[in-house]
């Protein structure tokens, strides 16, 4: 018995963009306002989970062809590299640097290496959540 899921599929296609944008916004807002890598990662993976609910796992795997276990590895490597980089410069482990740059379109911004560490956290959270959900969901 296969029912016609037109409404939820079309709505999921639209709402995916909103959730994904909100995830990026929360991830970037983490330094001065509530948010950060963990919440942003959970929101991004929840957008993918919405697609999995509306369609099915096989379709979503063809749409977003990402191997989530390698994503965990990339995130951990990024976090470790950010932490280990100051040791080459003679500073203690986990020293963070920041400076003010003038970027095109945005203007004067302060860039901080904690952002790179947060990106690692983001990727690990997305990878772990999606790996758990895929391995549970594929048990047939």
């Amino acid at each position, binding site marked *: 018995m296969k029912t*016609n899921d037109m*409404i939820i599929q079309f709505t999921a296609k639209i709402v995916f963009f909103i959730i994904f944008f909100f995830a990026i916004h929360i991830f970037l807002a983490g330094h001065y306002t509530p948010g950060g890598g963990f919440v942003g990662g959970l929101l991004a993976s929840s957008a993918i989970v919405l697609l999995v609910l509306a369609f099915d796992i096989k379709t979503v795997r063809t749409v977003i062809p990402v191997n989530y276990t390698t994503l965990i590895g990339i995130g951990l490597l990024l976090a470790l590299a950010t932490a280990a980089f100051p040791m080459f410069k003679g500073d203690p482990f986990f020293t963070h640097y920041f400076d003010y740059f003038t970027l095109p379109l945005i203007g004067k911004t302060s860039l901080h290496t904690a952002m790179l560490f947060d990106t690692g956290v983001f990727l690990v959270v997305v990878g772990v959540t999606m790996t758990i959900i895929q391995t549970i969901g594929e048990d047939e």
Partner: protein
Amino acid sequence: MAFQILLNFTLAFIWMFLSSNFTASGFLIGFLLGMLAIIMMRRFFKQRIYLVRVWALIKLTLLFIKELIMANVQVLKLALSPKLNMQPAFFALPIELKEEWEITLLSSLITLTPGTIVVHISDDAKTLYIHAIDIDDVDEAIDDIKNSFEKAIMEVTKS
């Protein structure tokens, strides 16, 4: 439709370059002038001018707000009436809309106006199954939806 909007944006940018006025107000002036030019040249486009569709969309929104208020008053009357003499019913509504987003929009509008809820779409997407809280005449309800919402949506999508 999409081509005309894109053309209007392009004309707005051309106006900005001509007047060397790269601000929001310059863009707005260019957009309005481009609208005027497109209205002047309307005979040369294959499709209807896009402003007609924008107007149909505004009319659909107003219709939805009106129906929402009216139907809420009806459901309030039902909820506050001392005797429960309502007639719930399921009925099938044949639809002529083809596109996915049109059907989703129509279903959302029917569900958001109280008293009626879309519960199922048939597999060939030609029939909606609707549950109504209080209905006297099924054919009257079908005609009502067809003449208000479906006609308004068709007005928006007509090329």
